């Protein structure tokens, strides 16, 4: 059986920091907007897929009861941003095999209000026997989600001769995209001097290498291709999907073979690119008009570009220079400003930006061509979105 699914509706709350609204309230705004966008009503939604439960977000049962939904398909995964593709996959599988008609991928997060659980005494998960979910080791003060990204970047810098000033091209380019997006939290251009003079948080990462801790909600409605064709908006096809890669060679915030966690170290080894999502979509990375990724920390953009073969190992820091991933570049990345400069909606802000670009609704930042857009993360999952 093949995936036969499309995104039929998108909705978002206001993106901000320190917003007064509950996660449920922001999620409700996003949900109503997504229904309006698709031309659907509440009763049409019979499934929900969610990966940011309480306390950062809300759990599926609370969403169903608060919004008066009657569901017969639910999927809820581990409370982490890494499950964007996973959530989309479950929605796509459910509508493709008839377990649901319309699945709402529901993400509403209050990072500013709930920041106490992200690091320190409130982060119980960091004491996992395997280490925290981002590599944390709180006994030694290796705390906060940026810990693993900083550890991976230090080794990457030493291995490939990359500097913090090279890395700065990532947040600077993504900020330039945000400046074309009125919904983005950050609206001022970022300079190299700003980046280099900002405080060091976890050496080698500086302030602007960290994403925003924001409050925001996004809802994406997934249905079958047939149903999507009859709805209000041009459908966006979920053309290819591949899941999270896991194993001893994997670490959430490092490319394979960098030698972080228990990965083998092989400085010249080429990746097994494992680009099944492209095969599924009948496309290659040469067809990609823009790339979207989980830019919670700026090194993750480098690692993702290498992981999917946009450049070779150790080449991403050179690849991102000279505006290549910024507005008008040959491979724009995170055209709405990403997690670094638009908002941290766990990557769903990138997914709805891909939908707007494919529909031709991205306003001043509309790409000249948006036939194949690629979402891919450093941990190896992928989604290819195309017009129907």
């Amino acid at each position, binding site marked *: 059986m093949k995936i036969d699914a499309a995104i039929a509706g998108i909705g978002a709350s206001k993106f901000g920091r320190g917003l007064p609204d509950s996660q449920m309230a922001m999620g409700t705004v996003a949900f109503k907007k997504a229904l309006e966008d698709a031309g659907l009503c509440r009763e049409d939604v019979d499934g929900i897929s969610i990966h940011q439960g309480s306390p950062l977000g809300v759990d599926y049962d609370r969403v169903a009861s608060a919004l008066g939904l009657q569901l017969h398909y639910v999927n809820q995964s581990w409370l982490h941003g890494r499950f964007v593709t996973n959530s989309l996959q479950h929605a796509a599988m459910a509508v493709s095999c008839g377990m649901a008609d319309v699945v709402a991928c529901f993400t509403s997060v209050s990072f500013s209000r709930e920041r106490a659980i992200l690091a*320190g*005494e409130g982060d119980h998960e960091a004491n*996992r*026997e395997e280490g925290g979910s981002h590599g944390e080791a709180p006994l*030694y*003060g290796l705390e906060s989600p940026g810990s693993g990204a900083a550890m991976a970047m230090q080794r990457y810098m030493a291995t490939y001769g990359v500097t913090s000033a090279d890395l700065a091209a990532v947040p600077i380019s993504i900020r330039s995209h945000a400046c074309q997006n009125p919904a983005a939290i950050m609206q001022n251009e970022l300079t190299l001097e700003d980046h280099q003079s900002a405080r060091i948080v976890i050496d080698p990462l500086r302030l602007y290498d960290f994403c925003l801790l924001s409050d925001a909600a996004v809802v994406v409605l997934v249905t079958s291709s047939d149903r999507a064709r009859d709805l209000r908006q041009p459908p966006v096809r979920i053309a290819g999907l591949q899941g999270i890669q896991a194993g001893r060679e994997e670490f959430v915030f490092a490319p394979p073979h960098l030698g*972080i966690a228990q990965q083998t170290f092989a400085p010249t080894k080429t990746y097994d690119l494992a680009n099944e999502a492209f095969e599924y979509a009948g496309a290659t990375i040469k067809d990609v008009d823009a790339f979207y990724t989980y830019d919670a920390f700026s090194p993750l953009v480098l690692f993702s570009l290498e992981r999917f073969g946009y450049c070779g190992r150790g080449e991403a820091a050179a690849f991102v220079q000279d505006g290549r991933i910024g507005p008008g570049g040959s491979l724009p990345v995170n055209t709405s400003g990403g997690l670094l400069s638009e908002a941290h909606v766990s990557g769903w802000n990138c997914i709805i930006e891909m939908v707007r670009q494919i529909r031709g609704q991205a306003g001043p930042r509309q790409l000249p061509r948006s036939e194949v857009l690629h979402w891919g993360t450093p941990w190896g999952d992928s989604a290819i979105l195309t017009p129907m």
Partner: protein
Amino acid sequence: MSDTNHLPTPRVSPDSAPFWAACKGGQLELPVCATCKKAHLPPGPVCPFCFSDTIEWKPASGRGEIASWVEYHMAFSNRFSDQVPYLVVLVELDEGPRLVSSIRDTASKDMRVGMRVEVGFEELKPGLIVPTFSPIEDNANGDLI
């Protein structure tokens, strides 16, 4: 004064208990596969390489090299607020597995990926003895990169 009373206690399971018990005796021990002879971390019930069920705990050399390191310039919890800036290291033991630890008597300007280190032990709070590392002059395995 850092708040060591609030340091977390390691989550000890039956698989990892021998590691922490050895630390109390001032020894670094690793789970080693009786079949393929490879050591692994974190400790598990089978060898993750050859899937053998027979695991033996053996003393490690205690030597290795810095696989990576970071320096915290802000504290994310009260427990480390008076220690910033402080270093955290990822050590690759000569036996292969890597573990997160601290490094003694070293400034960040002297930190280098590939530098050789040797284990010692530190009592973080009463009853909690953890591995920590110090630089050594030893080029047994050569530089990492």
